[in-house]
């Protein structure tokens, strides 16, 4: 049988590797050592907030999950949001109840497939999701889509509100990776979200809100 492209490529690579490198990098410093030499990250919540604000994000501190609705409702009102969508995440049920009670927003739920609910998802103003935490150094929220909170919930609506628990703040991406949480689970999709979608493709001029959300809000609990 003729070897496949795969076999030919791998054979070539194995042979090619035998050729010795002309230059061998003598650097022995590890990334961890290098990171230890960097300026202090400081208080994680403060740093996270500062980094988010630097990219136009809006971070509100909330004392507890119970206090969440009192912050979120007026906040969404000020954003001019008329409709809100969540998934089936149980921790958001009290917030949903309060939103329904208020009668101020049309309330949607992402509970069937994107094929069935596509029009609804793309028409909604605001998606609310939880998160796996955040990275302080770069102000990045760790969003992991699940059946309870699918991918489009944090992508299609013009406003994305993410909820981050303060106890789950990591100093750097390296520190987060070191926890092994991702490696143990390898979810089908895992996104670090750092601010609203944006571009500088025309004359290097920053425009916020291209294909993803135009507004990114973070409620930091604890």
């Amino acid at each position, binding site marked *: 049988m003729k070897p*496949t*492209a795969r076999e*030919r*490529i*791998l054979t070539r*690579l194995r*042979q*090619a*590797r035998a*050729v010795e*490198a*002309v*230059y*061998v990098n003598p*650097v022995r*410093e*590890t*990334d961890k050592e*290098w990171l230890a*030499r960097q300026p202090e990250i400081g208080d994680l919540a403060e740093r996270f907030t500062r980094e988010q604000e630097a*990219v136009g994000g809006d971070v509100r501190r909330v004392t507890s999950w119970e206090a969440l609705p009192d912050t979120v409702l007026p906040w969404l009102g000020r954003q001019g949001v008329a409709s809100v969508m969540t998934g089936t995440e149980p921790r958001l049920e009290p917030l949903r109840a309060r939103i329904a009670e208020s009668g101020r927003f049309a309330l949607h739920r992402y509970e*069937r497939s994107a094929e069935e*609910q*596509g029009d609804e998802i793309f028409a909604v103003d605001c998606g609310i999701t939880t998160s796996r935490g955040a990275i302080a150094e*770069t102000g*990045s929220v760790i969003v992991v*889509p*699940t*059946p309870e909170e*699918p*991918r*489009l919930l944090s*992508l299609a609506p013009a406003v994305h509100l993410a909820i981050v628990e303060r106890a789950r703040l990591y100093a750097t*991406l*390296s520190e987060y*990776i*070191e926890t092994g949480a*991702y*490696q143990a689970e*390898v*979810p*089908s*999709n895992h*996104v*670090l*979200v750092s*601010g609203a*979608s*944006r*571009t500088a493709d*025309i*004359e*290097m*001029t920053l*425009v916020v*809100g*291209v*294909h*993803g*959300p135009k507004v990114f809000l973070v409620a930091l609990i604890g």
Partner: protein
Amino acid sequence: MVPDARKFKRDSGRALQDPALRHNLQKAMHTIRGRRNERFSELNDGAALQWIGNAIKQRSLARLPELLEQLEAKLTARGVQVHWAETTAEANRIVLDIARRRGVKLVVKGKSMVSEEMELNHFLAGHGIEALEADLGEFIVQLAGQTPSHIVVPAVHMSKGEIAELFHRELGEPYTDDVAALTALARRVLREKFRAAGMGITGVNFAVAETGTLALVENEGNGRMVTTVPPVHVALMGMEKVVANLADVAPLMRLLTRSATGQTITAYFNWLSSPRRSGERDGPEEVHTIILDNGRSAIYGDGELRETLDCIRCGACLNICPVYSRIGGQAYGSVYMGPIGKILTPQMAGLGEGGHLAGASTLCGACYEVCPVKIPIPNLLLRLRQEGSQPTPAGRTLLKGAGAGRAVGEAMVWRGWRVLHDRPAAYRVFTRLLGMLGARIPQRIGPARSWSRARALPIPARTTLHELLRERAGQ
């Protein structure tokens, strides 16, 4: 895109005479360089980080075949279909087969330089499939019927006025040169397309062997759309993109975004590992990865040129390059432009067709300084130049097209140079002769012509340095 020496000469000359282009480029390059420098100056010893990046790439490349196999196994286990392509023609064929099987008419694309290597849009169009670019810069360039002029900022050569004209003409919308309004327009047009498309195609920034993860770096959200909404996602990756561990990604990412756009991180760092799983409500039903060789394994087989494969496509070398920042990307007439293009193109296309690009450098070394993974671009350029004009020395791998750039005239000049410098008597006679001729050396004919076309020819002094020194000693 087949590079062509004569065309390069003509187009770079034209670019230099184009004041609008010079203005657009100068402004953009100044901004982007400033942002990059700002980000690096915040670090304690950014230079050390660059060497760490280099070490990671070296370590990954040293295990390239194993890592690719590991990546394949991990992805396959999770239901991602992995394909291998030796050539761009093979890769195109694989995409077409998938598209045909799924009855795809419209494809939406995230940014991918590998797809430019494949000239995929053109290929698909030939088979009745429309491929639409979703990254704003790529969208603009595609509307204009051009190819990207920069690997990170594809439409950097155009002003907002030109883009406004283009949108007005091609999209039939009322004229506006407000950048926010132009962006909003693209958002509106493309939103419908994401939902109508049967396939999404992206590149890959990092592939992690340990976990079987494809990582995409972007700001606009088009990458997330393209990998979420259409029922099929095809990820195109150059085989050098694989790293061993997730931990390797953190420093490379830190280097990439700082070097590319001067950001500490992009808006989205998107990790993908499988098609939609049971119970999940969105995401593609099918995910494919195409691992492309297209000359990379040959580059890998040279212990020196191998370092070309360290590149993480940040574009920093373009931004700093005195040649790129004056002629722009399109003059190169190749997929990759600027310093990385000057080392990559001659190796991919062969020295016969691409060798001239290695000559388009002042060897100032600025690219080496900013390169986040410390590719010794000037050394590689010298090597390519040498092999472009000389038969390859014994014991070295023969590069495609080696010796193709050998010019008889040039070779004679250097032979003459050697004779003169080997024989003191001949040297003295020659310099004396030049001194006597002085300003009477003809400027418009012979070897002086191409030099004197754009600059004044230096006039040899009447007395040589040797004579002056002798005189001095005599006094």
